[in-house]
């Protein structure tokens, strides 16, 4: 099976990636199109477009709007192919729309028959983050763990593949990654004790080409000895967010989720001195050979996690100038509060520093890459750990960051929340949440604000400026060559700020909370900025009174709002 081979290869230390063609590895820099969720497969969310800039952004006006027809959390980033914008809605998705990118006129809509009971096996809102595109096909992943190819011209279903059985707690919420003739996807389920995997399918047929599990499945599997007993059997490590791809290294990068259950006593010694019981490969960044799925390297950000610090956040591929050398880097603002710069060829740690207030660890050991834990902040079986920062939403969650090669800064939508957490015992049952914990997440961090847009210098590993937001769940960011950063907040304000200084230059209220990052595109010499809005529902529900404030901040909704400059 691919999983055993894969794990074996890594544990034998076979870093056999072809490094020969090493010079000038490719961190894609967007040219002005927006063909993938993160603008490009490097997930930069940077656009080279600059018609809209710091001098004229104040004139931005709504060009058109589209009602998405569903009210659950809207987390989609549209993509542009030709003059068609493809956007998904929440709840299944309920719809995939193909719309004329100039007018918003709907060209087709796809309304999949998704079983209603997926609601019971989707942990954190009935979301969908968008589609991928390749060779005339729109690729859609669904909450019932199916992957579908649609004819991009008509919306007709070309093939449909079951990635897994959703009833065990598996859902797909993020768009797949298209690489050569493959379409690659992970899935969610770290809250249900699933066995995480990343799978590649043939774009033409939907047939499985390779599948790589993120955790062991049997006692003799390599890595099984990093788990207490046979606890890996329900060990999570779900790769539920988006992948990145470096075509020169031919490596696909994914993050893996928390180990299951959250309460750690089941999985190891229940203390900071966990020895080898690190629970591989949960809470990690994984680099996979795109052709075979073999794990070429891994970097575990939170060994033996007890805080639900998933390692899934997107990996931005960027070439950084480090000590006068252009270095192929991978940038990740981890849930655990540390910003990691890795060498994306081999997974070597270049640097790590906290980008939000962190107290569960004192730092990252530069030799081992391991967090230097504060033992008081590790929750244990029936022992509360109090005021742990960040809380389990993390220093950053899925709301995407962007990287501008123009300023050299990463724009991170961050959380400033802390928590109390305790481990409990729980018996695993398929399809039932497997958390083994109690918690209080409603604890604002120092300063009292609950979100902050942090402009971060990844070379110096320091904050350059920040914009504090009152409430948590601020939206993802878009950086443009017009010297701008766009982002939204949960009150529904969509804002443009100066990428160098953070000065606010423009804002517009779209009427419902914004979580996803905006995208931008150009058609017939005119630049447009598009953002999906629709306030989150489920994650704020973990927050009691703070959740009440989030709910009061804006109504539920579902809108795609597109802006442009009048007369441009």
């Amino acid at each position, binding site marked *: 099976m691919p999983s055993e081979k894969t794990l074996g290869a890594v544990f034998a230390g076979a870093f056999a990636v072809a490094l020969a063609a090493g010079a000038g590895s490719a961190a894609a820099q967007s040219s002005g199109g927006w063909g993938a969720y993160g603008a490009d497969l490097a997930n930069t969310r940077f656009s080279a477009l600059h018609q809209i800039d710091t001098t004229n952004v104040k004139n931005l006006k709504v060009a058109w709007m589209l009602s998405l027809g569903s009210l659950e959390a809207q987390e989609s980033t549209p993509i542009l192919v030709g003059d068609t914008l493809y956007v998904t809605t929440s709840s299944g998705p309920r719809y995939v729309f193909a719309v004329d990118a100039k007018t918003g006129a709907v060209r087709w809509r796809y309304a999949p028959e998704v079983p209603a009971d997926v609601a019971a096996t989707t942990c954190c809102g009935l979301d969908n983050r968008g589609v991928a595109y390749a060779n005339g096909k729109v690729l859609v992943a669904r909450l019932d763990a199916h992957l579908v190819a649609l004819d991009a011209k008509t919306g007709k279903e070309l093939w449909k593949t079951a990635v897994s059985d959703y009833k065990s707690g598996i859902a797909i919420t993020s768009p797949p990654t298209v690489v050569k003739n493959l379409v690659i996807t992970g899935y969610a389920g770290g809250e249900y004790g699933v066995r995480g995997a990343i799978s590649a399918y043939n774009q033409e047929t939907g047939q499985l080409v390779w599948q790589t599990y993120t955790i062991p499945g049997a006692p003799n599997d390599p890595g099984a000895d990093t788990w207490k007993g046979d606890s890996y059997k329900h060990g999570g490590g779900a790769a539920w967010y988006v992948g990145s791809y470096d075509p020169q290294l031919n490596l696909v990068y994914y993050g893996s989720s928390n180990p299951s259950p959250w309460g750690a006593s089941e999985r190891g010694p229940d203390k900071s001195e966990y020895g080898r019981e690190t629970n591989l490969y949960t809470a990690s960044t994984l680099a996979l050979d795109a052709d075979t799925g073999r794990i070429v390297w891994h970097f575990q950000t939170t060994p033996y996690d007890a805080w639900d610090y998933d390692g899934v956040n997107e990996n931005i591929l960027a070439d950084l100038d480090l000590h006068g050398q252009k270095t192929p880097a991978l940038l990740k603002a981890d849930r655990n509060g540390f910003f990691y710069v890795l060498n994306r060829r081999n997974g070597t740690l270049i640097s790590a520093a906290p980008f939000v207030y962190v107290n569960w660890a004192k730092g990252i050991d530069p030799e081992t890459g391991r967090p230097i834990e504060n033992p008081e902040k590790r929750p244990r079986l029936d022992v509360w750990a109090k005021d742990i920062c960040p809380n389990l939403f993390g220093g950053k969650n899925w709301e995407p960051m962007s990287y501008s090669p123009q300023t050299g800064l990463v724009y991170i939508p961050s959380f400033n929340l802390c928590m109390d957490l305790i481990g409990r015992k729980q018996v695993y049952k398929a399809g039932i949440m497997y958390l083994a914990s109690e918690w209080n997440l409603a604890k604002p961090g120092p300063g009292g604000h609950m979100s902050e847009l942090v402009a971060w210098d990844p070379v110096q590993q320091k904050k350059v400026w920040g914009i504090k937001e009152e409430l948590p769940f601020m939206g993802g960011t878009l950086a443009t060559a017009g010297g701008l950063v766009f982002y939204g907040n949960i009150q529904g304000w969509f804002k443009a700020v100066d990428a160098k200084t953070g000065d606010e230059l423009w804002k517009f209220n779209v009427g419902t909370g914004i979580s996803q990052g905006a995208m931008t595109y150009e058609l017939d010499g005119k630049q447009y900025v598009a953002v999906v809005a629709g306030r989150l529902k489920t994650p704020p529900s973990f927050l*009691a009174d703070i959740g009440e404030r989030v709910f009061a901040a804006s109504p539920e909704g579902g809108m795609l709002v597109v802006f442009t400059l009048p007369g441009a």
Partner: protein
Amino acid sequence: MRRTLLSLALGVVVCSGSGLPCFVSHAAAQGEGPAGLATATPDPERVAEGRSLFNQNCSHCHSPNAASPDPPRDLRRLRLRYGEHMRDVFWYTVTHGRAEKGMPNWSGVLDDKTLWTIYSFLESVQTKP
């Protein structure tokens, strides 16, 4: 009794006006749970135990301490919403689930005693009309 329960399981009996399934007092009829569990006198220890059990099993969707900001998931409104049927709605829902709303069927996952202990906690946090 049998016939009524069968009807309930199929969800076909609707009480006039309420739009809800017409419940019988299932728990009372079956003699489940310790005596007095639905009385107005809460046992603080039982409520505390129920709170912890609720927070372990239910809070990911319904918020810790049942304080959900989302009205449909706010279990402090059970009494307001279901009045004298609250207890029966609770029992029917936890033992059948509402999968399309995200609610699993807890039969075979949590035992009856655990479910009724959670109910005692929920009774203690009901919003006053």
